[in-house]
C-alpha cells in the first residue's frame, strides 16, 4: 500500500510544509525536536485540522482540503503508537487490545490476534493492568492495540523516546519484525539517528517545518549535513548486506555486499539473512595503502567521491566502495597530509566492534 502526504500548516511559530510519497516499508520522519514531526503525524491521523493538505493511503483519500474532504480520526483506520503508550488505565491489557479490534468492521479485520501476540511477546501480559507493566511492555501492548485495529497505516511517534537504553534494545527487534512481517506502510517519527538508520527504508528529514531531504535511507545516511548537532557523532553510512558465514570459533559473522565483506561480532542468522549495518563516520580511518598487521578486521577498498567540511578542523570524506558509500570523518590535517581529493583511491578501516549491526543473538 502506498502513502502520499502533502501538508502545509501553520501552528504558532511553526510553519510546516512537507510532502512525500512512500511505497510501503518504514518511512522515517527525522529531525530535531520542535521541527514539526509530531504536528505532521497528527495531521495524518486527523487529530489536527491542517490549513492545506492532501493525504492518501492505498488510494483512499483521507484528507483533501481543496475538495473539502477531511475524514474524522475514527474513520481513518490509522494505527497510532504514541510516545507515552496511552493505554487505557481502566482496562486490562486484554481490554486494551480488544478495544481497537471491536471498532473495526468485521469485513475489514485482517489482523490475526495470535500472530500479533506472538510477534510482540505480549501473550503472558493479557490479564495485567497497564499500571503493572514496565515501560517497554506498555509500548509493546500499545503497538499490539494499534495493529489489532487492522489499520491501513501505522504511525509511530517516538515510540522509544521515553524508554531507557535497555528497554529500547528490547523493543527495536519487535519493530524490525513488524516492518518485515506486516504489509502496511509505517511512518516512524524519531530524532535518533540510530533508530532511523536501523529501521527506515525511506527517510524524510524535517528542519524547522520544512522538508530538508527525502530519499532512501542509505542515500540520506551519507548526508551528514542533515544531522542535528546533538546527534552529530551518530552520523554515518548504512549498507544493506547479507549474512555470508558465521565463524563459530571466534564468534564473528561475515556479512557481504558489493562494498566487500564486513565482520561483525555475534551470530545474526543463517546465510542469506539480510542485515543492515551502520558505520559511524567518526569510527572510520582512511589509508592510502592497504594496511597490514592491524587489528581492525574490516578494510574496504574504494575511491574518494566527495569531501565536505565538517566544522573548523574536520572533513567528511565519502568513499565509493563498489557502489555502496562509506563516510569517514577525519581531520583536515590528515586529509591534507594524505592529499585526498575526489578520485583518490583509498582504504576505509573499521573495527568490527564499532559496526552497528542488527541485534546479534549472542554478543
Amino acid at each position: 500500500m502506498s502513502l502520499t502526504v502533502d501538508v502545509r500548516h501553520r501552528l504558532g511559530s511553526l510553519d510546516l510544509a512537507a510532502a512525500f510519497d512512500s511505497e510501503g516499508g518504514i518511512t522515517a520522519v527525522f529531525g530535531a525536536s520542535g521541527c514539526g514531526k509530531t504536528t505532521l503525524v497528527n495531521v495524518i491521523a486527523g487529530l489536527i485540522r491542517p490549513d492545506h493538505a492532501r493525504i492518501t493511503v492505498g488510494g483512499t483519500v483521507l484528507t483533501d482540503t481543496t475538495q473539502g474532504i477531511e475524514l474524522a480520526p475514527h474513520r481513518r483506520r490509522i494505527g497510532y503508537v504514541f510516545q507515552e503508550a496511552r493505554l487505557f488505565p481502566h482496562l486490562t491489557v486484554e481490554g486494551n487490545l480488544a478495544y481497537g479490534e471491536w471498532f473495526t468492521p468485521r469485513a475489514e479485520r485482517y489482523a490475526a490476534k495470535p500472530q500479533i501476540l506472538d510477534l510482540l511477546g505480549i501473550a503472558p501480559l493479557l490479564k495485567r493492568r497497564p499500571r503493572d507493566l514496565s515501560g517497554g511492555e506498555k509500548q509493546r501492548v500499545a503497538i499490539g492495540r494499534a495493529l489489532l485495529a487492522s489499520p491501513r497505516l501505522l504511525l509511530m511517534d517516538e515510540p522509544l523516546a521515553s524508554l531507557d537504553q535497555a528497554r529500547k534494545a528490547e523493543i527495536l527487534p519487535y519493530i524490525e519484525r513488524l516492518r518485515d512481517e506486516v504489509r502496511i506502510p509505517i511512518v516512524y517519527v524519531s530524532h535518533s539517528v540510530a533508530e532511523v538508520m536501523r529501521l527506515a527504508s525511506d527517510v524524510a528529514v524535517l528542519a524547522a517545518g520544512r522538508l530538508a531531504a527525502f530519499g532512501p535511507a542509505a542515500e540520506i545516511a551519507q548526508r551528514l549535513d542533515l544531522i542535528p548537532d546533538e546527534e552529530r557523532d551518530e552520523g554515518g553510512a548504512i549498507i544493506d548486506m547479507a549474512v555470508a558465514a558465521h565463524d563459530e570459533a571466534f564468534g564473528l559473522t561475515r556479512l557481504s555486499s558489493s562494498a566487500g565483506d564486513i565482520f561483525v561480532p555475534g551470530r545474526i542468522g543463517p546465510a542469506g539473512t539480510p542485515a543492515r549495518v551502520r558505520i559511524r563516520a567518526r569510527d572510520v580511518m582512511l589509508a592510502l595503502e592497504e594496511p597490514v598487521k592491524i587489528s581492525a578486521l574490516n578494510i574496504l577498498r574504494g575511491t574518494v567521491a566527495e569531501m565536505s567540511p565538517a566544522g573548523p578542523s574536520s572533513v567528511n570524506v565519502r568513499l565509493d566502495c563498489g557502489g555502496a558509500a562509506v563516510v569517514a570523518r577525519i581531520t583536515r590535517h590528515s586529509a591534507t597530509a594524505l592529499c585526498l581529493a575526489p578520485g583518490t583511491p583509498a582504504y576505509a578501516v573499521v573495527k568490527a566492534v564499532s559496526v552497528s549491526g542488527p541485534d546479534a543473538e549472542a554478543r
Partner: protein
Amino acid sequence: MTLLSLTPEEWQAVRLSLKVASVAMIASLPVALAVAWLLARRDFWGKSLVNGIVHLPLVMPPVVTGYLLLLSFGTKGPVGAFLAQFGIVFAFRWTGAALACAVMGFPLMVRAIRLSIEAVDMRLEAASATLGASAVWVFLTITLPLTLPGIIAGMILCFAKAMGEFGATITFVSNIPGETQTLPTAIYTLTQVPGGDAGALKLTAISIAISLGALMVSEFLARRAGARIAA
C-alpha cells in the same frame, strides 16, 4: 429503645426525605453530566453565563431560589401553568420538594463531575478516536469510566444537600406532613411545638446517621472506582 420508636408522622418524614433526595439526585444526574461535559470540554458563546447560572443556587439565599421556583413553577407561574396542562404539578407536592432539592444540589454535582472530566487525560480520548471510536463512544468507553469517582462524589454531594435542604423547599412547597414535610422541616416543626424536643432529637440522630452512611458509601465506591482507574 425510645430513640428508635418513631411516630408514624416522623417515619413519614424520614421516608419522604429519602425519596425526595434520591429522586433529586437521579433526575439531576443526566443533566449535570451533560452540562459538566459541555463546561469541561467545549468552548461556546455564553459559556461563562451558563456557568454562572448553574452556580447561582449555591450563592443565592435558598429562600430566593425557592421563591423564584414558586413564581415560575407555581400553579399560576408560566412554567407551572404550562406543565399543569399535562398533569405535571410541582406546587405543594413532593415532586416540588424534589425539584427544589435538585436545583439546590445541581451546582455541587456539576462542579464535582466537571473537575473530574477536566482531569481525564485528553490524550487518552485522542488515542481512543484513532482506534475507531466516534465522539459518543469515546465518551462512553473512556471519559465516563474515568470520571466515575467524580460522578459518585457529585451524586453523594447532591444527595446530602437534598437531605438537608430547608429554605428553598419550605418556600416553594411549604411544610405539609406526608406530602412535602422532609426531615429538616419536620425537625423545625418539632422545635416549634412544646414537648417536641424528643422527636427533634430522634430525627436529628437519624439525619446524622443517613449523612454519615452516605458519606461512607461514597468513600467506599469512589475508592474502588479510583483503584480501578489508577494509572
